């Protein structure tokens, strides 16, 4: 294989492999260096296998619907290990797909840990060093460990360990009611676990709209999931085969009754993988583990770029991919003179976030709470799923679509949808924001009846004071 490239990408996750393919599409000679498996956390131990498991959990939930129709549904023999096997199959298939795509686009693939020798050269463990005109660091992140709960992947699990379980824990405690904790809590609960989710903030999904999070909480509680909010886990004791997790209130640190568990999932955030790359010697500035970047994600070392979870933008696969495209297009414009990317940075107000459980929750941009707190001129309108024919017909009437807009211009500042298909229907509003359509455009566009997307149309109409089914 060659050792001279236009661009070398370190990390083959959704940031790195997309950056490498985009670079190759623009005529750059590109390679990608990965120390683990192509596809990164997302494909192997993240988004993809978890979606497979969530799908399986949904099937289990459908049993209730069949029973309501009079069917005798016998769930005995329900075997989580088969759901696990299916999730691995999906992950492996897509990981192979990434290898195929890299090859198809002429991107060289190297296995090994990379370390910068200079801003133009990296050494690769177990193979020849390579030189490149530009580098893109896309090394991602790993689960954050809490000192009181060292990971052993047996009793104290990371999300990776949790996704690799072949059986669900009988009693599970999950620290962190963010997307990861909620999604795995949903899966385990549907497969029969006794699940308790502990959150330090006073509500679940703390970065999401409070009303939307409340809809999710209510649905979880109806299925038997317990939440302890405003609580800190301070330590653990072994108790028999399991654990006893000690809790205190987050405010005045008063002890709460401990929780018994067979497994503890710690899902309290992720930390960037920025060490061991030789960045200090390059003069790349790193702040609290995150690599600092400027326009086009270039670091303080010229020609060295950083994207994805290793920089301090939202730790989401789609953000990494977009940042990968921007940096690759920038490098191509410098090396090949091709058109530079239109955007210098991802516009954070158009980053969607999605929580895939039942009900789903998806959002972007300014929340009503943040708008109120910052004093931005805005108006909020929320349309309930109860007023949407389709939602009622499919027996999913819980949820709403909420739009935050600027009444002076009609600009859509943010939106949240919670309920059936929320993660799909959010994109209409996101496209509207991105393309600078106003709420009028969404309100006036005919929507097929009956669809869940009508909730979006009605929310837009409501923003203009003319919702029909409210």
């Amino acid at each position: 294989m060659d050792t001279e490239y236009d661009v070398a990408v370190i990390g083959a996750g959704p940031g790195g492999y997309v950056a490498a393919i985009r670079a190759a599409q623009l005529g750059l000679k590109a390679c990608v260096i990965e120390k683990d498996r192509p596809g990164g956390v997302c494909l192997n131990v993240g988004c993809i296998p978890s979606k497979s498991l969530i799908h399986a959990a949904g099937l289990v939930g459908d049993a209730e619907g069949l029973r309501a129709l009079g069917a005798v549904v016998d769930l005995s023999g329900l075997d989580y290990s088969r759901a696990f096997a299916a999730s691995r199959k999906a992950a492996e298939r897509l990981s192979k797909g990434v290898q195929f795509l890299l090859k198809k686009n002429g991107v060289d693939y190297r296995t090994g840990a990379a370390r910068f020798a200079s801003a133009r050269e990296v050494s690769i463990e177990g193979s020849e060093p390579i030189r490149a005109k530009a580098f893109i660091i896309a090394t991602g992140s790993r689960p954050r460990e809490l000192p009181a709960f060292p990971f052993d992947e047996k009793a104290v699990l990371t999300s990776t360990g949790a996704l690799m379980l072949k059986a669900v824990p009988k009693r599970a405690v999950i620290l962190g009611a963010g997307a990861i904790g909620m999604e795995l809590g949903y899966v385990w609960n549907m497969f029969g676990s006794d699940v308790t989710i502990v959150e330090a903030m006073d509500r679940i999904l703390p970065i999401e709209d409070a009303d939307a999070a409340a809809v999710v909480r209510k649905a979880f509680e109806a299925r038997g999931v317990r939440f302890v909010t405003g609580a800190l886990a301070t330590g653990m004791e072994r108790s028999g085969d399991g654990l006893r997790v000690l809790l205190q209130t987050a405010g005045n640190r008063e002890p709460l009754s401990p929780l018994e568990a067979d497994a503890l999932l710690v899902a309290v955030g992720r930390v960037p993988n920025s060490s061991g790359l030789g960045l200090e010697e390059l003069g790349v500035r790193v702040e609290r583990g995150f690599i600092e970047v400027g326009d086009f994600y270039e670091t303080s070392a010229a020609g060295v770029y950083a994207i994805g979870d290793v920089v301090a933008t939202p730790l989401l696969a789609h953000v990494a991919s977009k940042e990968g495209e921007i940096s690759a297009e920038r490098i191509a414009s410098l090396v090949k003179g091709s058109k530079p990317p239109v955007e210098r940075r991802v516009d954070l107000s158009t980053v969607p976030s999605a929580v895939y459980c039942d009900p789903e929750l998806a959002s972007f941009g300014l929340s009503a709470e943040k708008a109120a707190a910052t004093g931005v001129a805005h108006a909020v309108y929320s349309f309930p799923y109860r007023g949407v024919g389709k939602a009622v017909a499919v027996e999913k009437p819980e949820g709403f679509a909420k739009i935050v807009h600027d009444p002076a211009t009609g600009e859509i500042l943010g939106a949240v949808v919670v309920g059936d298909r929320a993660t799909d229907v959010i994109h209409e509003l996101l496209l509207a924001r991105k393309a600078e359509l106003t709420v009028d455009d969404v309100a006036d566009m005919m929507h097929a009846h009956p669809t869940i997307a009508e909730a979006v149309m009605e929310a837009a109409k409501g923003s203009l004071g003319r919702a029909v089914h409210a």
Partner: protein
Amino acid sequence: MAESIVMIALSPTMQDGVIAEWIAEEGQAVKPGDALCEVETDKATMPYESPVSGTVLKIVKAAGQTAAVGEIIAVLGKPGEDWAAVIAGATPVAERPAAGPSAGVTSTEASFPALGPIEPTVAAPAAPPLSAPPAAPRASTASAPSSPAGASPSSPAGIPPSSPLARRLARDGSVDLRTLRGSGPHGRVVARDIMAAAGKDTVNADAPKSAAPGGASIGMASRGLRDERVPLSRMRSIIAKRLGDSYSEAPHFFVRAAIDMERLLELRAAVNEGRDKPIGLNAFVMKLTAAALERHPLVNASWEGDAIRYRPAADIGLAVSLDAGLITPVVRACERKGVEDIDAELADMVARARSGALKPEEYADASFTVSNLGQYGVEEFTAIINPPGSAILTLGAVSKEAVVRGDAIVARRTMRVTLSSDHRVIDGAVAAAFVAELKALLEEPALALV
């Protein structure tokens, strides 16, 4: 008979105007003085009032389009009359007994027709898009301000495609969509282009009012700097032309003085005692400048090429910076007004200038101009003369300086001023005598009573 309504020069320097919005609709009857549309000129947005009565038969220039002075923007007449014939047989503009001046636009612009070069417009691009069915005139492109989203993104003749939000922002801003090159997909004008043209900061589109979820965004070496070409706004191009012409045509020379402000500041404090709203220093300086101009009328003059016009009143402009550029509201006849009136007029005009509602006659034709950058802490600076005046006075910051009084060094609050003069009109000795007079008046305001 149906008659055409042409664009008139709504401001002295106006060569063309953008129809910001149609107020009258096709088919609507209007009387003289009714607002037909809002026209965005080089400095302000103004109503265009109908000079005649009749029914609006045809809107020729849709909202967002630009019309040169003299170009037909609409046809008025009796319902059913043939508007197309009027457009087809449009008489050259120069021959028309000007359709204006409209009622809302007073004397000033009547005296300025010469400044708005009137181009005999050849065939205003006949009727707008032929694709619009004649039976539904309201369907013509972008003619419905109430539903901006309805405007086609691939509009005709010279209007670049634009996003609905961009069009809304442009509707009330001072930005001509046609002058913009869109940075969106396929050259679409998007909100950031409008913001950039309006001089608003859009360094990072990351933060449109929002601190986005979970995301600290980080900037480094290049924070604030950008690699970008921003087309000129109308205000910016007019500033460029006027000041460029002034600086290249008028031979500037500069006379400076350091002024002891103790007395004037004491006087101002005394006047303001017990007042809810204190009178600003600018008003005092303008009043005393007017007194100095009365004593040195040679400075209150305009260059007219083959003559010098001495002006009968001290019409003093004050340079005011806006987001999009600068403007100089003029307080007429300062020599006859008290500081309270001057201050009130200034406050009113500055507020309206910031909202784009200053009328052209309120910022045109100063005989003398004052520019104050003292609030930025600058010691002194020079300015470019604002025609048709022949001199401009700059004020630096008032700060304590060590000065010699008798044989002692004392700290005195001092302001440095610089007078830029047009040497074609004002000789060095004249400028020096004026500055000396002004210094005396500012240092001992009581002299103004003498």
